[in-house]
């Protein structure tokens, strides 16, 4: 089964990205990535730019609405995601708990939709 670990950061944690490459905080992320790969569960991942760089678009009654910033105005914002191949949701929660992002912000675990549904999207 594939699971998405969606990582939510607080503004303070986004600020940590400005630190230099040898900062221990980044070391923790590097180590986590290494552990995922070595355990053979890693499928893919990506980090997002800070929320202020986002733009939200809606089309309502034929009219475009374009807004600065992210979709939801909350303290914790989506910062990135990791896709893992795991036997169960229990295993996914374990990896979520080990994620450095879980001890500052939050990590949401969600199964990817079954392939049949994905086929419906992609044809």
């Amino acid at each position: 089964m594939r699971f998405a670990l969606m990582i939510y950061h607080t503004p303070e944690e986004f600020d940590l990205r400005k630190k230099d490459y040898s900062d221990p905080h980044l070391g923790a992320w590097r180590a986590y990535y290494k552990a995922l790969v070595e355990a053979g569960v890693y499928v893919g991942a990506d980090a997002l730019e800070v929320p202020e760089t986002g733009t939200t678009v809606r089309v309502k009654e034929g009219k475009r609405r374009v807004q600065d910033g992210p979709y939801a105005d909350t303290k914790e914002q989506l910062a990135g995601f990791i896709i893992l191949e795991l036997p169960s949701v229990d295993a996914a929660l374990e990896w979520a708990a080990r994620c450095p992002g879980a001890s500052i912000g939050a990590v949401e675990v969600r199964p990817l939709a079954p392939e049949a549904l994905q086929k419906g999207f992609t044809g």
Partner: protein
Amino acid sequence: MNGVNQEDTHRTIERVARESYGRLVAYLSVQTHDLASAEDGLSNALVSALNHWPHEGVPKNPEAWLLTAARHSLIDAIRHQRVVSESEPTLKFLTESSMETSVSTQFPDERLKLLFACAHPAIDPAMHTPLMLQTVLGLDAARIGQAFLIAPKTMGQRLFRAKTKICSGGIPFEIPQERDLPERLDAVLEAIYAAFGLGWDDMAGTDQRGRNLAEEAMWLARVLLQLMPGQAEVQGLLALMLHCEARRPTRRGPGGRYVPLSEQDPKRWSLPLIEEAEHHLSEAFKQGRAGRFQLEAAIQSVHAERARTGRTEWPAIACFYQQLVRISPALGTRTGYAAAVAEADGLEAGLAVLESIDPVAVSHYQPYWAVRAHILQRLGRTREAADAYDRAIGLAEDPAVREFLLQKRPKSDS
């Protein structure tokens, strides 16, 4: 009724619930063979107590009061069911014994049978501890899920399924025969120790709700010892947990910093707890049947000696681990053995023990990588050490442990 008294009553109810919960659930479920209903009945009784006691005062025998109320609730529930005839024997028991307890307040302690039912081999071993925590201690699914890192709803469903299995799958509420006892008792001890481990890991104090699971586990072990005096492994388990508990205050430094055992100040370990642990361990050893928990307690006992002698007798620890690996070759045991061998016989020897462990099995096991990193670093194999540190850091869940390892990791590469 003023606020202070209300608060007192609440506290009394909490205390009675805490002390009697398992006894009452055990007594009711052993008779009716229906764990879920027994719990429902008792929780209704507790709600009823919260409504009545503040006005009428706390009854002289709160436990008997709760038992009677729980019985009434169970009788009501059964009468509401359609097939009353099938429940006839249960109903008979409930009404009859409800007459009795109004006279006599004594009822047998059936918690042992309940513990054995919870750790029955027909129930998924992963559910043994959650079942015990719920049925004997009355913890709710959300709190148990928290400790086990499982969503509250999922934990609730799993608990429900396990209880249904006990109820309909004919799992007996009984103390096993002599022949099966060691193995069955081991499952009970394992489940209690698992609860302790969860509480032990929960150092950061994320569990805000009252007592820590480690304390609950020690309480369960004390109950078990009281019910089965003279079982060496039960005393061994209690000794093991007491030794660990004695060091709790020294496991964290200023700002929540992680402090490894070797750097803890033994003067700050709790002497009364160590003494109590030693008492149980020597009582257990007198019986001449060293089991897994006694050996683990013995290892902790050697560590505790440092409070007196100022040094750690590593060869003794390695020797106990060697015996332990023979009877229980779990990953944790073998990793501990490797660490002890590294101190007693040299780093290379310790590393050799680590290398004899299946590499696939350790890909998710954090302590293995932490021990490996530490040994490699002291051997001067910096690159490999950095690699092992990364694995240990990446697998760590506790931010304080992560921080500690990040600081120890050699800076040279990457």
